[in-house]
């Protein structure tokens, strides 16, 4: 009898197309699993299947309900009331309630936890559970980016934290998939959550993240069918895989970008005229062709993917390449014979090394004599963190709210302001952008900020790449997001 029920259950699973495992090839093992602590992309692409926030970001970069079904904001912009979804359970079977939201918030802001998300919620004065399914956030001051930060408030279960001390090796969330097995350097296996609150999802029985460090090996495995899907395909591999029958290549404008950042406390880049000259000397269209095979867009301080916020690059006077004007500016700044400097880069990021070399060649015409110094991760991070560079080439991540990236990068003393850039006018605008709750007012403020930063700021923004995902034709339903999140793996089915 029991056997018969099992057989029936299995048949039912197959009937719904659930009995299959989606094989994904990724480049790294997850560097820890605690959603409040980790920063690595290799971790987030797994964590995102297991945990939920109150809200989530969809493929159009809009906020959508997740564990909250709706919210209301008080007229003064200080009180946010969330209605929580009923009938949600954690993977250990316990029902999700407002107390879990309060606990998760408290864990993030606790100094002991050491969460990199803490600063996003520093503006919150209190979080209260009104009843089982209502939670109220009160802010100390109006703060426009608050809602955009909420997807980072991952809801965890207190009893699991207490049992395991931290969440680096264990995952108990409310999401569509549950942790089944981790084999270091080999794979991470997630299985479908049968009690997931979105009916009919997920569409596959399991996800397996196979760790395959070599890009060419991942591509070969996709061709043979060993893997169904590879996220984050580099531009060169995308070129070769694009034409293969049986393989679909998806592309979307990314939020992260390549850049040349400079140290604004060291000559020569302490002079805004030299920074403007640097921008003038770069030919971004040529760079897009040479480095990205055309699969990227030149951009300013905000990604062209943020269509509500980003200014068109035509607005930036320094984006029209002009070596003669750059030379003239250098002469005016006291460098008639040009400038010698070092560009620090990171060897593990192919795109960055390529971009640094193309920029090096372009700059030569304008009198910038750059030496490209390719370092490995450890050295790079140390010199980057200690602002021990003339200039560096790197990739930077974006955020759906303009404040999320601009504030930490350009505010005096900002946490990733390794350029040591300090401009009181910029600081004032950044604060104004946070306090204004009205969208059109904010759009005006961020337009001013982009104009102020594009040519004279500490970063020459180069290009925003197309993010590629490749999958086999038997995979359907995958939606790619500009944030690199793989949340929509829950919609995927295998035919």
């Amino acid at each position, binding site marked *: 009898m029991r056997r018969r029920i099992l057989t029936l259950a299995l048949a039912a699973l197959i009937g719904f197309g659930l009995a299959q495992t989606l094989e994904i090839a990724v480049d790294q093992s997850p560097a820890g699993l605690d959603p409040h602590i980790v920063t690595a992309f290799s971790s987030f692409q797994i964590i995102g299947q297991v945990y939920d926030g109150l809200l989530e970001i969809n493929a159009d970069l809009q906020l959508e309900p997740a564990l909250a079904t709706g919210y209301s904001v008080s007229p003064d912009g200080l009180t946010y009331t969330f209605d929580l979804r009923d009938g949600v359970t954690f993977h250990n079977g316990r029902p999700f309630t407002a107390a879990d939201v309060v606990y998760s918030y408290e864990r993030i802001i606790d100094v002991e936890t*050491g969460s990199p998300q803490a600063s996003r919620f520093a503006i919150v004065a209190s979080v209260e559970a009104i009843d089982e399914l209502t939670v109220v956030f009160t802010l100390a001051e109006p703060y426009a980016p608050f809602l955009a930060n909420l997807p980072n408030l991952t809801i965890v279960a207190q009893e699991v934290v207490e049992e395991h001390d931290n969440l680096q090796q264990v995952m108990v969330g409310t999401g569509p998939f549950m942790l089944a097995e981790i084999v270091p*350097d080999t794979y991470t296996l997630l299985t479908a959550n049968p009690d997931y609150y979105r009916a009919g999802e997920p569409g596959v029985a399991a996800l397996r993240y*196979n760790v395959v460090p*070599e890009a060419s090996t991942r591509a070969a495995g996709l061709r043979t069918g060993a893997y169904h899907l590879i996220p984050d395909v580099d531009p060169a591999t995308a070129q070769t895989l694009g034409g293969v029958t049986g393989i679909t290549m998806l592309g979307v404008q990314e939020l992260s970008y390549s850049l040349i950042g400079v140290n604004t406390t060291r000559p020569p880049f302490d002079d805004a005229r030299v920074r403007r000259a640097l921008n003038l000397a770069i030919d971004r269209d040529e760079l897009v062709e040479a480095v990205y095979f055309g699969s990227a867009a030149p951009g300013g301080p905000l990604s062209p993917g943020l269509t509500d916020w980003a200014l068109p690059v035509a607005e930036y006077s320094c984006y029209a390449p002009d070596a003669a004007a750059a030379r003239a500016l250098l002469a005016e700044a006291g460098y008639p014979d040009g400038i010698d400097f070092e560009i620090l880069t990171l060897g593990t990021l192919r795109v960055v090394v390529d971009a640094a070399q193309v920029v090096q060649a372009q700059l030569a015409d304008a009198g910038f004599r750059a030496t490209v110094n390719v370092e490995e991760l*450890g050295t790079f991070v140390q010199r980057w963190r200690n602002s021990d560079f003339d200039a560096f080439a790197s990739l930077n991540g974006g955020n759906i709210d303009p404040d999320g990236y601009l504030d930490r990068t350009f505010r005096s003393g900002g946490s990733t302001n390794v350029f040591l850039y300090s401009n009181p006018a910029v600081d004032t605008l950044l604060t104004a952008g946070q306090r204004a709750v009205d969208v059109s007012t904010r759009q005006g403020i961020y337009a001013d900020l982009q104009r102020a930063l594009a040519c004279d700021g500490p970063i020459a923004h180069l290009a925003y790449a197309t993010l590629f995902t490749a999958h086999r034709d038997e995979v359907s339903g995958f939606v790619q997001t500009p944030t690199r999140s793989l949340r929509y793996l829950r919609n995927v089915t295998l035919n």
Partner: protein
Amino acid sequence: MTSYVVRRLLDLVFVLFGVSVLIFLMLRMIPGDAVLIMLGANVDITPDRVEALRRSLGLHLPLHEQYWQWLTGVVRGDLGRSIWTGRPVLDEILARLPVTLQLTGLALAAAIVVSFPIGILSASLRGGTADTVVRILAILGLTLPSFWVGVLMLYFASIYLPLWPTIGYVPFADDPGGNLARMVLPVIAVSLPMVAGLSRILRSSLLDVLSLDYIRTGRAKGLARRTLLYKHALRNAMIPVVTVIGVQVGYLLSGVVVIEQVFAIPGIGRLVIGAINERNYPLVQGVILIVTAVFVFVNLLVDLAYAWIDPRVEYA
């Protein structure tokens, strides 16, 4: 003989001690701070947090104290814990060592099985077309980097043998067929340079022996060519070959590092590359120590093999 082995094993202790000091200092001489790498481009890095993490990892202590702590642990059989995962270093290594040893062992066996006939053939047909072809191929085999050969084979296999499982690793106990099928390409890629090297050494060593007086005497008294070659010449030609095999095991271990990367095999090589990039000091130290021990041990076996090949060799 026994006293020789004991003495060599005692030497091993000193070698390991020397290597441990070297690797400990070299790791800390290269730039890059384990704590900063761990925190990465974190949004909220405060000097307090950096200091707290440094303390919790014991990296705030002076170097000699760190070394002493580590060394006393090692003597008790405790290689410390991985900075990133918190798991014991010994567990991390033991989980991957069998994978690497299987790959290395198979590659070594394949190299010997393939290179011997080639070397013998080449020597006995010296100057002929076959010999020339073999010599050219040997040069090619020595010069082609094994990672490149690996990637090429992977590509061709994915196009012409799409059903052949080429990537990754399954434990032999779970699926013997799948395990061996996945070993084929990496083993070829890793053993190729070794096949080339060994067959060349065997060829030249055989040629040296074949020009000696006792061979000429043997030929003069009418011994069959086959008997002369296999029974009288080959054994005497083995000493340099065995020496080279011992040295090659070291190259094999380093070649495997790259090949594991290409074929996504979860072995020691993958572990150590990741650990070096992360400045995961205890993990790197542990791996190097174990690999050194394996290497020294293999060389001891090689030295002992001399006596088996040539009974005139004595150990004093």
